[in-house]
């Protein structure tokens, strides 16, 4: 570490190698103590097309745990075949799958924090695909066992 790294100035310091701001002395001290992952989301610059900040790494982990729990529930429900009506199993599985899909799209793909244009594209395509293929499958008699 050079003297410049330990200075107590509050002015951002220019990094000669990367031509970027390396932060103030307080910020460097905090990074040294907690690591860069601990920088709160509101201090991270917004990417183009974003309206608000992404979740923190900890929140990402919490969402992953929720996804794992729902997956475990899905597998558990699938083993109830024969014990409860198949219609109920299908509704439960589709519901849990939808929750997982929405969680990934909202938080990991950042549709919740991005400009609405992305959300509109995705919803339009997903809903359009579901409707289109439901019509096709219904026309071909999938639900009534026809051919």
């Amino acid at each position, binding site marked *: 570490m050079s003297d410049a790294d330990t200075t107590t100035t509050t002015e951002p310091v220019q990094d000669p190698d990367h031509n970027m701001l390396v932060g*103030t002395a307080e910020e*460097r001290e905090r990074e040294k103590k907690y690591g*860069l992952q601990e920088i709160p989301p509101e201090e991270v610059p917004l990417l*183009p097309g974003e309206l608000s900040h992404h979740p923190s790494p900890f929140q990402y982990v919490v969402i992953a745990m929720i996804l794992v729990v729902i997956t475990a529930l899905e597998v558990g429900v*699938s083993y109830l075949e024969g014990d409860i009506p198949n219609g109920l199993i299908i509704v439960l599985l589709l519901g849990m799958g939808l929750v997982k899909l929405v969680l990934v799209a909202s938080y990991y793909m*950042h549709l919740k924090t991005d400009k609405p244009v992305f959300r509109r594209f995705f919803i339009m395509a997903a809903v359009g695909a579901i409707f*289109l293929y439901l019509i096709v499958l219904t026309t071909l008699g999938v639900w009534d066992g026809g051919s």
Partner: protein
Amino acid sequence: MEQAAIAPPAGGAHASTPVHAGHGEHETSTGVTNTKLAMWIFLSSECLLFGALIATYLLYRGRSKGIEPADVYNIPFTSATSFILLMSSLTMVLALAAIQRADYRRTKIWLVATALFGMVFIGGQVYEFTEFTRKGVTVDTNLFGSSFYLLTGLHGLHVTVGIVWLLSLWGLTTQGRLQQKDSETIEISGLYWHFVDVVWIVIFTVVYLIPM
């Protein structure tokens, strides 16, 4: 040392200012970068592609002669590979969070972890296909075999493309050619990767878990 050399954005004035989109990006009339918009349009078209294949599987399911899905599916094994793909989505967003904080060491770790999870998933798929073949289900056995291999095989191809993409990003980061200002590059690859995960969420539910 890497962490200390390239520090995160300072707060205050920088905090809510969108970072530059990267080399060669310009202001657009939509207010979003063309690359990100293009990726979303591509992903939207993929919804229709995978929707068609899932619909085809549903159409032929239960109408085949011979071996049926219930005879060959190994739900505990597929659940494990699904869990691995979910974890890869977590490591992918952690890679994005790391590069946004100019933490290049963690960026590389999470990118490699994501690629490795993807490789394990593909390995699982190869094992599953091998087992199915041993049990007599091949792509030309019956309608179930054809639609199943086409759907899951195309998904596996998407995962493979994602792995190559992730490893190339890891290489760029290692060479120092991917910096904090290029965070959107990681985000766009992440959009692709998460979409592949979303598609698997649907396939796992509709193809593997829903009873006949």
